[in-house]
């Protein structure tokens, strides 16, 4: 009697099965680390195969709601899953050295990465506010633990604590928004909310509008939009280097994935209201993120504030509503790959489990590790939005959407911030190539060891940034071409 299409949740099931298998095998067989690697790889392969099957189903005109209307199989959900799968694979490779160094707790680390990925994937597929909340918590709680998984690191503990307190706060705000929306409309399912808002003239929409605002604020925390970004720099700085890229990218993709469904489906009727709200948050994020990034002396904090600015650019595009979905997907996919690539380079510099990453450590990186320096420079240039990189095309899409949506002032703010952002992105590039590192009495030209897993991540992310930057066709407009 309840419509259940297992395909619409298959990737998550594969990942969770993988996590269970890792834990069980670990505890009963006590295997060497590479066994966990095989199981994880199998889980990722199975999840990837499920996503391919989902695309085929969508291509054949299938899809739609399942699990009592809690999950939807639409192009957005499937595409977001694909992005998250890539982020997870890259993140796992990047974190592998750190995870393998956890000793007997390695299985926990690996399964947490798998579970977090499953949670954020579910966020992109959920069309029921309660389901979104659960998916959000599955992902977030796993990330809180990952931030503090290196026991001996006080910075990691502190990052976990800050992430946890503000994350729990944001989740509470989000679900209170859901409760108010339910109080106003009598439904938590986004399609039911949409139907209610279309069918009835709501005389006093205050409760629904406040609920909607709280939903946006709660998600704003998760995607590090200003003024809800305060946790991000501390967490990115304190968490073990290997997982930061995954944490940052996965949370951002998941948050935007859910926000798109919530606003574009559930509250499409109130687009006038939420567009203006998003525009204000977007302008704040872009300006604050850029200004604060300029003053940083730690690469991770700089990347965190640049992430705030990027959340602002994504929100800029979102103001246009549903037509922006294609551009949003492109931006999310390419930005998260850039972010993981940049943090792979950070991992190489500060060690797999290290915290903090001051600018001084990057002096002369161009000679110490040409590959890491080149890819880090490329991602910086791409993040600043230079042409011939994916960053330019993504930003262009966002600005075009906002311009068409009538937010010309927002585009001008964004352009001004982009110009100012060149300063801090290029500062790192200059530091790596034109400033020798001679302090601390160490050999300035000592080659930096680059584990093979990190090398793969670096090369992949560079390839994606360049190839889709020059030839964006295959990725752009993916949603409409199902």
């Amino acid at each position, binding site marked *: 009697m*309840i419509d259940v299409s297992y395909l619409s949740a298959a990737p998550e099931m594969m990942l969770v099965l993988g996590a269970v298998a890792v834990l*069980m095998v670990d505890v009963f067989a*006590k295997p060497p680390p590479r066994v966990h690697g095989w199981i994880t790889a199998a889980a990722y392969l199975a999840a990837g195969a499920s996503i391919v099957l989902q695309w085929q189903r969508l291509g054949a005109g299938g899809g739609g709601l399942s699990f009592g209307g809690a999950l939807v199989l639409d192009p957005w959900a499937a595409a977001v899953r694909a992005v998250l799968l890539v982020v997870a694979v890259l993140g796992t490779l990047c974190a592998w050295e750190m995870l393998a*160094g956890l*000793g*007997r707790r390695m299985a926990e680390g690996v399964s947490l990465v798998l579970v977090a990925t499953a949670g954020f994937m579910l966020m992109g597929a959920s069309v029921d506010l309660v389901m979104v909340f659960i998916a959000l918590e599955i992902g977030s709680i796993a990330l809180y633990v990952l931030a503090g998984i290196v026991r001996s690191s006080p910075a990691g503990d502190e990052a976990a604590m800050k992430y946890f307190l503000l994350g729990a706060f944001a989740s509470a705000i989000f679900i209170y928004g859901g409760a108010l929306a339910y109080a106003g409309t009598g439904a938590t399912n986004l399609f039911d909310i949409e139907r209610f808002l279309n069918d009835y003239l709501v005389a006093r929409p205050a409760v629904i509008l406040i609920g909607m605002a709280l939903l946006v604020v709660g998600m704003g925390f998760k995607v590090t939009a200003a003024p809800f970004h305060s946790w991000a720099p501390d967490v990115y700085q304190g968490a073990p280097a290997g997982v930061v890229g995954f944490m940052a990218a996965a949370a951002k993709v998941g948050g935007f994935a859910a926000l798109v469904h919530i606003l574009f489906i559930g509250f499409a009727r109130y687009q006038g209201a939420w567009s203006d709200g998003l525009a204000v948050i977007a302008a704040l994020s872009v300006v604050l993120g850029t200004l604060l990034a300029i003053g940083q002396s730690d690469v991770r904090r700089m990347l965190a504030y640049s992430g705030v600015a990027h959340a602002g650019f994504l929100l800029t595009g979102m103001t246009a509503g549903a037509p922006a979905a294609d551009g949003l997907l492109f931006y999310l996919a390419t930005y998260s790959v850039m972010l993981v690539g940049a943090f792979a380079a950070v991992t190489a510099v500060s060690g797999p*489990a290290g915290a903090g990453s001051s600018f001084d450590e990057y002096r002369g990186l161009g000679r110490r590790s040409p590959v890491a320096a080149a890819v880090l420079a490329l991602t910086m240039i791409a993040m600043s939005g230079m042409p011939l990189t994916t960053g330019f095309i993504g930003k262009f899409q966002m600005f075009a959407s906002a311009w068409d949506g009538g937010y010309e002032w927002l585009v001008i703010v964004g352009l001004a911030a982009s110009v100012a952002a060149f300063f801090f992105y290029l500062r790192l590039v200059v530091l790596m190539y034109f400033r020798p590192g001679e302090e601390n009495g160490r050999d300035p030209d000592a080659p930096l060891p680059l584990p093979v897993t990190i090398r793969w991540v670096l090369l992949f992310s560079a390839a994606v940034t360049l190839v889709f930057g020059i030839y964006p066709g295959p990725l752009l407009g993916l949603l409409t071409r199902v």
Partner: protein
Amino acid sequence: MELSDYLPIAVMFILASAFAGVSLVVSYLISYKRPTPEKLEPYECGIVTEAEPIQRFPVKFYLVAILFVIFDVEIVFLFAWASVFGELGWGGVAAVTVFTLMIVETLGYVWKRGALDWNVSRRARYRAAPPAEAAQEMAA
């Protein structure tokens, strides 16, 4: 629901209160009273109290308490399932079986990891299993 439907509940409530109250009052009235210092102390499992409770409890209490909370709360989903047991049929049974297996899996993990052992020896044994990796963990 009629108000009269509540009558049996009210009667039950009154009877229960009356029984408890009468027992207490009667035993108070007819019992011998020979107070000694030990008897006047707060009741603590029948053992003579020696000192104030220490301020901090060992962390293993926390571990067991938190595991209890988790497993306890997960069970509410069984309650929801039970209330529509008939309508869901075998599909519901299958879903709940999967859910229960996931919980059992967690329990199995916690158990094998040694989190339920009151004595630390077994956890130490688990940690010490392959010497090389134990050393690695110490270093990490």
